[in-house]
């Protein structure tokens, strides 16, 4: 298992595509950020960005774990490395879980870096602000790891079914976009049954607007960022259960599957 992980990490260091995708998504985040800063005029607090503007870019950043998982899990089916690993005495469980673990860790860490980088920059340059507290943001970002892991698990399952990294990337992204549209169109209140709607739940800050009698003062938007215990538990439970189920299903499928 250790050898397999080392081999995968070596491949990753040499993979230009992953680095290009990582930088491209990060650049997109910062391009969007510059747009938001210039739109807001007097700078932008990190908490204002998180509460009101980060949701769409978080969705876009999920392109990275899809590519990452596709390459890690599916890349070795193209050049038959997986077949050779089997022939050299590694078990299917080792082959499957070594790649799954790398996808989960690498995908989640990379996505978190992409998501948090603009927040860190804004905090340093303009400060945190008052829209939401640091604690509330940290809780939400920490919880967000779980649906990201769940989406990666779904990608792992999908990759082991189609056994082609590029087909995985394309089709996973289509599934991802469709579920995003489904969530936005049909789900009245973002629930936790889809990975993407779980992220919607965590990135959507309930807000209400207040105003004063003097109409020269702008409307004040108030965010209620505190998640209920029920919400936190449902995010954890659904992400772990469904993610785990997809990971298990992928393994069972790969275990019995013919590698051609």
């Amino acid at each position, binding site marked *: 298992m250790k050898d397999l992980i080392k081999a995968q990490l070596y491949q990753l260091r040499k993979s230009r595509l992953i680095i290009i995708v990582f930088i491209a998504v990060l650049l997109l985040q910062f391009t969007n950020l510059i747009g938001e800063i210039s739109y807001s005029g007097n700078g932008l607090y990190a908490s204002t960005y998180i509460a009101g503007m980060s949701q769409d870019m978080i969705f876009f950043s999920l392109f990275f774990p899809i590519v990452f998982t596709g390459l890690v899990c599916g890349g070795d089916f193209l050049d038959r490395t997986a077949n050779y690993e089997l022939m050299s005495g590694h078990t299917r469980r080792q082959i499957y879980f070594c790649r799954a673990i790398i996808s989960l860790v690498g995908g989640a860490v990379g996505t978190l870096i992409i998501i948090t980088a603009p927040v860190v920059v804004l905090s340093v340059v303009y400060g945190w602000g008052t829209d939401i507290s640091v604690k509330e943001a940290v809780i939400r970002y920490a919880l967000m790891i779980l649906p990201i892991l769940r989406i990666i698990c779904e990608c792992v399952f999908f990759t082991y079914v189609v056994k082609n990294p590029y087909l995985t990337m394309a089709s996973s992204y289509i599934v991802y976009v469709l579920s995003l549209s489904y969530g936005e169109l049909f789900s009245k209140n973002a629930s936790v049954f*889809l990975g993407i709607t779980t992220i919607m739940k965590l990135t959507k800050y309930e807000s209400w607007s207040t105003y*004063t009698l003097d*109409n020269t003062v702008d409307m004040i938007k108030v965010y209620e960022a505190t998640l209920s215990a029920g919400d936190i538990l449902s995010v954890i439970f659904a992400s772990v259960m469904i993610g785990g189920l997809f990971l298990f299903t992928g393994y069972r*499928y790969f275990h019995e599957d013919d590698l051609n």
Partner: protein
Amino acid sequence: MLYSDLILILVTIGFSLGLYFLAGYAAKALSSKWKLCYVVPFIVCILFAELSGTEISLLGVYIGVALLFVGFIKEDVRIRRMVSVGTIVLTFVSILICLFYPGYRMPNFVSDFKTGFTSMKEHYCMTEHKNIDWDAMYEEYLPKFKEAQKNHDEVENYILWIELCNSMHDGHVAYSADKKIADKAIDKMYGNDYGLSLITLSDGNTVAINVQENSEVYSAGIRNGTVITSWDGKSVDELKSNDIPIEWLPYNPVKENDDFNSAMLVAGMGGDIVSIGFIDENGKEKSVSAPKLGTYSKRLEDTVDILYSGIKASNLTWHDLNENTAVLRLTQMMYDTDSSANSNFSRMKEELKANILEQKEKGIENLIIDLRCNGGGDPGFIIAIAELLSPETEFSYACSALWDANAKEFSYDSESGTYVVGNKVTYTGENVWGDGQIVILVNMATISAGDHFTQLMSALDNVTIMGFTSSNCSGQAIRGVSFESGVLQFSSVPTVHEDGTIYIDPDASRKATVPLDIKIPFDERAVKAIFDDGEDYELQYAEEYLRK
């Protein structure tokens, strides 16, 4: 049954049947991809759960879908067929539960109560001013909502919200829900119709109004204005003070206005037959046993409409009453969406200014502004009109409370019991109307910005505020919180005087803060004019007043 649940059930049965017949083929097939068919129902079920949420009545379907997943793991034809059959059986059990379980897709009233109540407790801006004991209220209502939940009684849930909202004595605290439920609840709340409504006159007598012609009470000689001495064996005063569910009175911030309304509720009390004592046209006391004719809510609605609606005309329309008096109807303090969005009412103001000048050219000297049933709106609208009607000097409107961005609430000084004052709003009069007399007609349904306008105008010497009842006296701005069973709105944005005290809304004593200059007596003459002759008595009274 919800369409999405029905489709999920049909899809699950379809999958189960399909997988039953596929079991043999999938076992023989070389490709392991056939196994994935047993994962599909699970994914479909997740999509449906996301679409319409989970439902306990569908537990059989969920277990069935999980059973089908076993077919992915166990490649045994017999087991695969057994799970398919098991899923079909469980799905049929779910159908029966969905059809007969009264709690199917019923919102969780207790959780909704907690959500709405907590939000209101945190953000309501007049807790100290109105001396509200949130803990006591929570203790009182939680068991009631639990009971409604236990009985799956959505009508009772609605009634409890109405009770709770009206017990706050704030016209801006309101609950709304599905119209069908609301209609059922209102029918239940206001009791039976016996062919008449009641009202208490200024002299203290309670009389019949809105009497139905082909009814038992009419045959017995009860007419509009007939004095009612007893109702179901008790005096009306006794029922008014002890028995009527006072929390069901709408428009109730001001105690005096409650008193005007309360007899109307007595007219719905009683069983299948109610005994009504009255004074006949010869002055003799008589009684009649009146059978119920239906639900009282329709008659009550009709009575309220006759009494309160004001001139039935569009907003900002002018009517000539006589050669030197015109009426301006204001149903709401709104003009168009553009003006509201930008808080810029200059176009409306220009139009109104031209109208006023035109009226003056015609020789109009007196103006009646009909604010009855004015539902409120934008302060910008009020300022625009107030500027046209006020003398050329600066007037103080009110102040905003100071917003504390860190605490995410308006700054409140608990020692003095007042808000910290933010921006002060003033306006300068343009004296377009001049010195001509202005009468403003209000009633208890004149609310919010309607109250604000009445308050501003009351400062002018040439303005007289009149009506049967004072304006509603609810002047704070609102926010809403929605949950599964409905939407709750409440006062959350304080508007204050220069000393930080609450603007307009009465305190716990419930005395009118925008009092009437002239309280129009509600007497026999008024009853006859309104309910027999269909006249607008308040408007006539105002006209007569201006003539004098």
